């Protein structure tokens, strides 16, 4: 698995928040869903994912809960909080403005 580019690293928070906004899930599933939704373009390893998850949890934008799944395994489920949703809106708007600006320069002809 290749490590994501620096740009994606910066937007990892945004991606995680969005994925969790769609549905609460545990850490591995978040990585899988990210790969799937981006059509195999974005791949994130645990070295980046879990620190990001912990940072978001510390900031209060996501919360974690331990539960037992069907196979009697303990899994830690993450879900987005109300502040997290607000944050998501903020970061999404920022990303739109930023990416729009970059695109309009790069694809200027």
């Amino acid at each position, binding site marked *: *698995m290749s490590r994501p580019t620096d740009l994606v690293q910066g937007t990892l928070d945004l991606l995680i928040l969005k994925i969790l906004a769609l549905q609460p899930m545990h*850490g591995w599933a978040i990585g899988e869903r990210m790969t799937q939704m981006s059509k195999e373009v974005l791949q994130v390893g645990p070295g980046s994912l879990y*620190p990001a998850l912990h940072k978001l949890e510390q*900031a209060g934008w996501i919360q974690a809960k331990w539960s037992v799944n069907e196979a009697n395994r303990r899994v*830690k489920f993450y879900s987005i909080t109300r502040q997290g949703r607000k944050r998501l809106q903020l970061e999404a708007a920022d990303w739109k403005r930023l990416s729009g600006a970059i695109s309009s320069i790069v694809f200027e002809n």
Partner: protein
Amino acid sequence: MRFLRSWRSRVRWLFRRSEIEAELQDELHDYIERQTERHRSDGLSPEASSLAALREAGGIEQVKEECRDVRSRWLEDFGKDLRYTARSLRRSPGFLAVSVLSLALGIGANTAIFSLINALMLRSLPVKNPQSLVHITRVDSDGKPQSVSWPLFQYFRDNLKSISSAAAERSERPTIFIDGRDEVVSADFVSGDQYRMLGVEPAAGRLLEPADDKVATSPSAVISYGYWRRRFGLNPAAIGKTFTVQDHVNVFTIVGVTPPWYHGVVLGSDPDVSVPVATMLSEEKRNEPTYNNFNMMGRLAPGVTHQHANAELQVLWRAFKQRVAATLPEKDRPGYLQERAAMLSGRTGFNPLRDRYSEALLVLMGIVALVLLLACANLSGLLLARAAARQREISIRLAIGAGRGRLIRQFLTEGFVLAALGGSVGLLLARLFATTLVTTMANGEAVTLSIAPDWHVLTFTAALSLLACVVAGLAPGLHGLRTDLTLGIRQQRSAGNQRLGRALVIAQVSISMVLVTGAILFAATLLKLYSVDRGLNTEGVLTFSLRTSGKCPPERCRTAVQSLLDSLNRLPGVASASAVDVLPISGSLWDRDVQVEGYSFRSGEDQGTAFNAIAPKYFSTVQTPLLRGREFNLRDTRTSRKVTIVNQSFARYFFGAASPLGRTVTSVKVSYEIVGVVADAKYTNLKQPLMKTMYIPWTQRMEEEPTDFNFLTRATGAIQCALFQRSRGSSARPIPLCV
């Protein structure tokens, strides 16, 4: 809200650390398992898939460390470092003891001197706006303050526009007669404006006002809070009590109490009783412009600068000198006109201790700074040795990925712990040193100087401890990190390490040499002082002084003193007993101008001679050899021929090699015949050169009878105790006498 929540999670993390670590472990384990399953479903073998999963994850420990790093860790790391430091220090108790001791000595000495400097030079009087207080005084050639006379005080007070108010003060230790008993108290004679100028409010009753200066009958007095508590137990009935002071005729009434934080204006003393100075002045003292006995303090008028006020002072002082010089005899005028006056800062009050000891204290400060430097070099050497011993540990830690910053933080924590320990012990030692120093400075007088550490001193100690440890620890710490890892693992000392170690040893030896040389010089001076020939033998001599309170009729006084001398001489075990007016080597001097038969003074020559009044057998009591003639005896009474004994310097100065016996000396219009010559003896103190001295019998003193007289007895060997009952006027005074 978010801030609070993040703090909550931090705190939770701090307390439930092991639980959270376990959770992290589970989470990652779960991830690896799922990833392995994924590879399995892709078709790899079980071992290959788990290997692939682990490789992709990038190492579980690193991931965990990344997660941990996300949370703020300094608090937890600090706790870890402290525990680690405690463990490693416990393992080397020798190092701990030596380093804490060196630090404690260095820091303790510095803190002691600093707390003295703080008490004497930095702390202000606890009154309103002390920065605007000024000390108006004559000064000597070194700039040290002397005193002013009453006419001078009035002159400055009335004419200096730069000051808004002024007060004069004088301290004494008189005997007062209160509640039917005699008592020795410390007293302040103050002018009426003192309390108002300082902005002091009474704790009870009222304080002295300018109007009290003019009251002739039944004047008022004020007592201190401490005295009120000690003597009267805070009883409000104390206000209204009356007392008399020594042999003054006024009866004083206590009208109020000063607040508990007020200790007078002279640093180091605490007056029990304050009376208006105007009531204590005789006509002579009131009008004599050269009778300098008062300390004067003023408050600058608002908006006036110190320099401006000082300039005005100089102008007025010159005018005053001109006026007074015209009234002086011709020969005294040039000397008087040379006198200087100045306006000094009054922020710390009158400060005789500071004036005497400030230079010594600053020199001491320099010396103890050297001591601290020595202690730091010592500590640095110890830390270097310790770092060298831990080279292997440091190398391993560096190899497994500890950041250099992390290691430096741990060294600093060690330094911090040592600083805390050294500083605390140093603070205790400082208390001991400072108390000893104050006792030495007090020199037998009662000095109340609060050297309890206030926040100035504590800040100083803390800063010094930290600085010492940083300085001591930085060099070995940085040096230790710069090493080559392989060398470190093999525990070999690099060349740089050895160089630093040697440099530290050289530094310590040099500083020690400087300190030891200084100590030897000081000790030599002290030894010389002790071994100087005093001209009298104070070993085995007991002295005590007697005071009268209330007026003692001269005749009765004389018979009482005589009978006391007789009783003393009759005591078994007493070789001889005598009395003297000015006790030698006590810091006092009594001198007068004399005219000598057959000698004419050149102009400008000093006519002063030291004076003293003694009882018979004085010279045999202090063992000053009698060279010619005789001692005084009982036949030298008030009415017999006036006689005097002179010392060798006197005889040689005025008569050369010829015998002075039978010649006449005149002083204050009384002629004395010389009947004896004694060897020279030290008078004021051990450092003063020997002076011409003349002695007269105590019965032949012409002024009012002395109210304190110093008795001396030379006893032989065994411990003697004798109890005397004596009647003096209306009070009986038992005198226990023990050798």
